[in-house]
């Protein structure tokens, strides 16, 4: 079952031929509240990482207020995640159509797509798609004579991962330094330029047209249990066929790995899997083979579905090195306002580097875990947790490799 990457439509003509922009017509015949109900029924959860129920998020927007905004989070900067880029490349109009419906549902007349700065080509694709949609009266004033007006601006990021966090993103659009805001107030009440704002991921929004056309019930029937629908996974690492896949939630990892990814490349053995982007805890090969790819199963395995950025780690990869690279990333990207994250990320990176270089001390392992523990759940945004969780899970699950580095030579990285 495919929804997002079912039919590929680079331009608007193809998209329309494939049934595109029918959903907005249907949407305009419904009341905004009915659309929100439909999305609630679908059980669609945010695909940006946190998995927050989309319909519920929309329902927080006060109906009577003016100056409301819809923002599409297309910052996609988490190591291992590249699914939104694929979606924009192959089906840009599904995002625009989803945005028009979402904007109509919440009563926003202005929309923004905040796109990662490095995605220059994708930004151009979106600009072109917006231009095409405007020419066909799907965007602009009084869309299809519905009385509803909506415009979209594309804003390009400038290279900071933290601007993917929704409130840092709003700051960035406003021209300020990208730093998460203290919540509450949540964006649904005080968002962009002070107006009520919904921020959704690309994939989340691109799913909406299908739900409107086929009904929330039909969507909730796809998938497994409370994990409804399909999900994009971007798979990297030495599997035979890395790339972006759309699969039904609830698919066993084993099936996906063997049948779609084709297993490991010749000569490689699977050691570990990061199922949902660099910030979620790692699974050993053994653990991975038991999970199904959905919110609940991954959570009970102690990790998360996250953004769907799946990183396959082979036996030969030194986990100390892998974790240090991760720590270096989070250290570099911490915005630095909260004490535990600002000081903790650099501290951990330093300790890991020392261990990696064979200069570590026995107590470093416990210290690193303790520092990670002390960072967790105490900050303005979850970036601190995004490093802390991997630190704890890597050290716990692959302690042996850390000990190699403490006691002598690592057979894997030869350091």
């Amino acid at each position, binding site marked *: 079952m495919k929804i997002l990457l079912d039919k590929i439509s680079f331009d608007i003509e193809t998209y329309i031929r494939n049934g595109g922009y029918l959903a907005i017509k249907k949407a305009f015949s419904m009341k905004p509240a009915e659309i929100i109900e439909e999305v609630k029924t679908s059980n669609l959860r945010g695909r940006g990482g946190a998995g927050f129920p989309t319909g519920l998020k929309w329902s927080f927007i006060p109906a009577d207020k003016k100056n409301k905004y819809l923002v599409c989070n297309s910052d996609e900067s988490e190591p291992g995640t590249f699914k939104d880029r694929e979606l924009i490349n192959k089906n840009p109009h599904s995002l625009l159509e989803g945005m028009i419906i979402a904007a109509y549902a919440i009563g926003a007349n202005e929309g923004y797509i905040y796109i990662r700065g490095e995605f220059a080509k994708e930004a151009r694709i979106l600009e072109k798609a917006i231009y095409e949609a405007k020419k066909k009266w799907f965007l602009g004033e009084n869309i299809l004579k519905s009385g509803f007006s909506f415009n979209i601006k594309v804003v390009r990021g400038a290279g900071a991962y933290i601007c993917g966090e929704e409130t840092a993103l709003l700051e960035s659009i406003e021209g300020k330094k990208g730093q998460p805001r203290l919540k509450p107030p949540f964006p649904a009440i005080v968002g962009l330029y002070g107006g009520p704002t919904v921020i959704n991921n690309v994939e989340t929004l691109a799913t909406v047209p299908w739900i409107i056309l086929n009904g929330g019930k039909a969507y909730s029937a796809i998938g497994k249990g409370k994990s409804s629908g399909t999900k994009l996974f971007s798979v990297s690492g030495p599997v035979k066929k890395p790339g972006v896949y759309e699969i039904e939630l609830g698919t066993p990892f084993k099936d996906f790995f063997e049948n779609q990814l084709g297993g490991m490349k010749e000569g490689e053995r699977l050691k570990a899997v990061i199922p949902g982007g660099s910030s979620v805890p790692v699974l050993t090969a053994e653990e991975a083979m038991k999970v199904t790819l959905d919110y609940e199963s991954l959570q009970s395995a102690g990790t998360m579905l996250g953004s769907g950025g799946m990183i396959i780690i082979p036996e030969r990869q030194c986990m100390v090195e892998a974790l240090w690279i991760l720590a270096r990333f989070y250290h570099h990207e911490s915005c630095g306002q*909260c004490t535990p994250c*600002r000081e903790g990320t650099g501290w951990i990176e330093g300790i890991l580097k020392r261990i990696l270089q064979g200069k570590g001390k026995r107590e470093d392992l416990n210290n690193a875990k303790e520092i990670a523990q002390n960072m967790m759940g105490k900050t303005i945004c979850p970036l601190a947790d995004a490093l802390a969780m991997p630190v704890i899970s890597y050290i716990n699950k692959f302690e042996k490799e850390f000990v190699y580095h403490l006691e002598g030579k690592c057979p894997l990285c030869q350091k």
Partner: protein
Amino acid sequence: MSFMPKIKIDGKEYIAKENETILQCAQRNGIYIPRYCYHPSLSIAGNCRMCLVEIEKMPKLQTACSTIVAEGMNVFTSSEKVKKARKDVLEFLLKNHPIDCPICDQAGECYLQDYYMDYGLRKSRVSLNEKVRRGKRRQLGDYLILDNERCILCTRCVRFCEEVTKTSELFVANRGDHSFIDIKPETSLNNPYSLNIADICPVGAFTSADFRFRQRVWFLKTTESICLGCATGCRIKVQHNDNTVYRILPLPNEETNTWLCDFGRMTYKEMYSEDRLNHITIESQEFGLDLDKVFDYIKEVKPQEIAVFLSPNLSIEDNIALYYFASNVLKTENIFIPSLPERKIEDGILKNSDPYPNSTGIEIIANKLKLKKDEKTSEKFALVISSLEIAKTYARDSKGIFFSLTKSDMNGAIVPMKSYFENEGTFVNWQKYARKTTVSVVNEKAFSVFDVMKRLAVLFGSNSFFSSLKDIEKFISSNGIDKEFK
């Protein structure tokens, strides 16, 4: 009627105010929650994470500075979880903090030191070469020095410049543990309120260039007083030791001021200027502290040719002494008040357009005692008695007795006057609050105006002058002057 939520803090029930934060509610009820970034007069940043508290039914600790109270909330401010979190936050704060305490001027009034003793105390697991180094000792304006290595990035200084002075000179440059406080290119930190930054910086990052290294703070004694730098009349704390004033700090109060302006803070320096007067000078000749010489100087002048100008630089008591001397000893009707500037706070912060501390006070006196306003009449008089500053306008060409802190080449008897750090007196600020200065330091080489008038009265052979400040107080209330005060 506003809604007053009932909440529990550490097991006791309290009635909170609507929309107040846990920190505020706790504080009102005598429960102190440690904080760095929170400041009652700035916006909430919530970045230091020092104020984390436990709230029943919430899995994560919450920042007390930003969490609004809600009915039925059950808060714990010193559970094991909270204590551990504080310890952890302190450890993070000290991770890159230099070992500067012995050479840091904040020592003794540093919130890192204080909280470390109260909530920290853990053996360091960071070696010196692991610390991130940042810039040290940078002069950012006339009064401020910044040591970025000591900064804990609470952003109080940044918010102060954005929200209070609206000059926005400062910002956090870079990010992560390389963040540091920087100043915008081609600006300097010279807004008229800059020294407040040294006060609100909780650590030794911003220090006052004026005060730095002059005294260890634990030697300082404090007296509460008021600033006489303008008609706003801010309440202050005077800090001194061994009969020397070292600095002025604000005494925050709801009526008048949270902050102080830099000018006001520096007013104490006049006491220590090279030109400080410590002897009587008459027509450029020095006469020690012998008031008889002043009497000799004026005794020949006919009382009708003498004019007394009340002065907005002098206290109510000293002005009354002047008035009473003129009306009861000299028996002249030539008692005036000078024309006084308009009083308003033009910058919307504190500084008053009226540079005098007691204009409102002498207006009240003039009103009650039916005195005339200036009329630039001074030229007609042979001799003028007033403070030097007022005399400069009204007695350019006449002789006079002028009270002054510093030397002057005016033509007359210049009498060394005690500053109001050395003397007590009531001043009525522009809001009509009557407040008293306090003696912080002693000066025996100067007089109060009252001392001088009392002695001159004796020399003029009068026995009906006030014998003590108490008499002046009685006069003030019997004439209903203090009824006008707030």
